[in-house]
Structures are given as C-alpha cells and as structure tokens.
C-alpha cells in the first residue's frame, strides 16, 4: 500500500513539474513566468529529496528557487524602469490558446 502511495505521489510530482515548466515558459506575462519558475524550483527540490539527494535538494531550493527567482524579479524590475527596454506587454493572444 505504501508503495502505491509513493508511486502516486511521484506521478503527481512529475506531472506538476512538467506542467509548471511548460506554463513558466509559455506564460505571456513575465511576472507570472517568474513566479511559476520559483514554484517549479521548490517542487524540483522535493523531487531531488524523493530521489535521495538531499544535498542537491538544498541547493535547488536555496539557489534555484530562491536566489535565481530574486535575480529574475530584479531583472524584471530593471526592464520595467529602463526607458530603452520597453514596458512589459500585455498578454499576446497567440500564446494564450492552450487550455
């Protein structure tokens, strides 16, 4: 019974990871993409834990999700203020088609 539960957990985790990765890349709004990337990093850390790699999980949560996310947010802030960088554009309908 434990085995089935573990398998179900792993399956949900894998599907969530793939879905988050896709949404993070396809999301038309950059801010949404960054938030999804951070969530992806945290779930990826859980996946590393499930694979028995706590060292990698720690690094992923701290560096992958935490600091890279902050750096992305900083960069987005910078793009938004830079007169030459252009404002963030509203959603492009082309990408919004996916269910």
């Amino acid at each position, binding site marked *: 019974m434990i085995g089935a539960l573990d398998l179900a957990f792993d399956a949900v985790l894998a599907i969530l990871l793939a879905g988050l990765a896709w949404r993070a890349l396809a999301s038309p709004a950059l801010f949404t993409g960054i938030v999804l990337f951070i969530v992806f990093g945290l779930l990826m850390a859980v996946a590393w834990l499930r694979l028995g790699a*706590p*060292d990698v*999980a*720690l*690094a992923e949560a*701290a*560096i992958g999700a*935490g*600091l890279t996310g*902050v*750096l992305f947010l*900083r960069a987005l802030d*910078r793009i938004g*203020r830079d*007169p*030459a960088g*252009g404002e963030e554009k509203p959603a492009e309908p*082309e990408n919004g088609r996916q269910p």
Partner: protein
Amino acid sequence: MAANPEAAGPTRPEPAPGPAARAGLAVACLALAAGLGRVVLDLPADAAGLAPVVSGRLAESGVDNPVTAVLLNFRGYDTLLETGVLLLALIAVWSLTPAGCWGGVPGPPARRGEPPGGPDPVLRGFVRWLAPVAVLVAVYLLAVGTHQPGGAFQAGTVLAAAAVLLLLAGMARPPATASLWPRLVAVAGFLAFVAAALAGMPGGREFLEYPLGLAGTLIELVETVLTLAIGATLALLVAGVPEPPAAKPPPTGPIKTELPR
C-alpha cells in the same frame, strides 16, 4: 546622452512560423525525445556508478559526507571553477554599470535616497526576527556540511538571502561598489580555495591534492571562507549596480511622443 529613437523603439515582432515549419519542429523535437528516452532505457538497471569508489576512500578525504568529499576533495577542480564562475558573474554584472556611475551605492537613486526606515513595517518586523535565524541556519549548514547534507553553497545562499531581506526591508544599505571590503570578501573564497589547492604542492603533491592529515582542516577552512564569499557575491549580484540619477526622465518623455504607433 539621449538614446536614439531607433534603438529605443519597439523591435519588430518576428513572423510566426508557418504550419510546415511547426510540423518540422514537432517532428525534430519528438525524434530528440524518442532518442533521449531510448538512451535512458538502455542504461544498465543497477549501475553502481562511482559510489563504491567514493565510499571506499572516504576515510582519506578528511570529511564524512560523501557529497562534500566529492565536491571539495575528489573533484575539487569543478568546485574551484564554480566559485570562479560566480565571481565572473559578479564582474559581468558590475561591468554593466552605466558610465559615470561606478563606485556609487547600487540600486536606483530613488531608493538610495530613501530613509533607512523603509516603507513596510510588517516586512521590517518579520526580517528583524528572520535575519538572526538565517545566520544561525547558515552557520549550522556550514558546520554540519562535513558529515551531513549542507556545506558552503547552501550556507552562503542562506546568508545571501538574509542580506537580501535586510536590503528589501531598508534595514541595510548595499555597500558602494568602490569600497574595498565587499570586493575582498567576494574574492576571498576563490583565493582561499586556490591557496588550499597549492598547499600540498611544496611537498611534491599535485594541485588540489591535500596533505593527508590536513585534508579535513583545509576543507573546513575553505568552506568557511567560501560561505562568506558566496553569501557576499550572491547578495551583491542581487543588489546590482548604481544607476544614474537624472538619465531616466529625459529620454522617456520626448521619445514616446515621437513614436506614435
């Protein structure tokens, strides 16, 4: 210096790929995915990898955590280069400093002038509690790294996170990029690692080959300095570069009106 309108204008959107191109891309992606899947399925089911080799010689590494042994002893070269890459990233970010701004306090001038009080009392209260805990966690991660999961990178990141929170809450100011000590701390990790790598060489050892009895001490020393250096480097990366005070308003006004689209 006014940006010229052509550079400032929106870039022309690329035309979307046609159905044939999309189909071609899909086929190429599927072929790649199938190939990768095949390779994974072809892997031997119970490959022991290098784990037995590592655990067999763990006693010589000076630490009890196999991951730390690999990262700082058996494959120390990779970690040494990683710390160099981190330093290069900081240099790359700093090299984007606008002309005439080098040496100032990082960040936009509006925030630079903000009173150290900061705008958000909830964040300030939270950070006041969290920052000391973060420092404690960083020290714990560093200390535990020699025999359990943890180590310099994780500890350094937690330190950096505490520093970033302090910056966000307006409870600390980033140091001016011209000041010496942040640069010294950022470089110290790489230098300490190189020094440890060279330490065995007078005794006829290879680069990065630690003297047997000293390996544990050397690794702990390197990890301690690395923690501070990584924390400082990451926090400085987030703090960014000084930004010009007056360059912002002039370009936005006239150029926007020149480009009515």
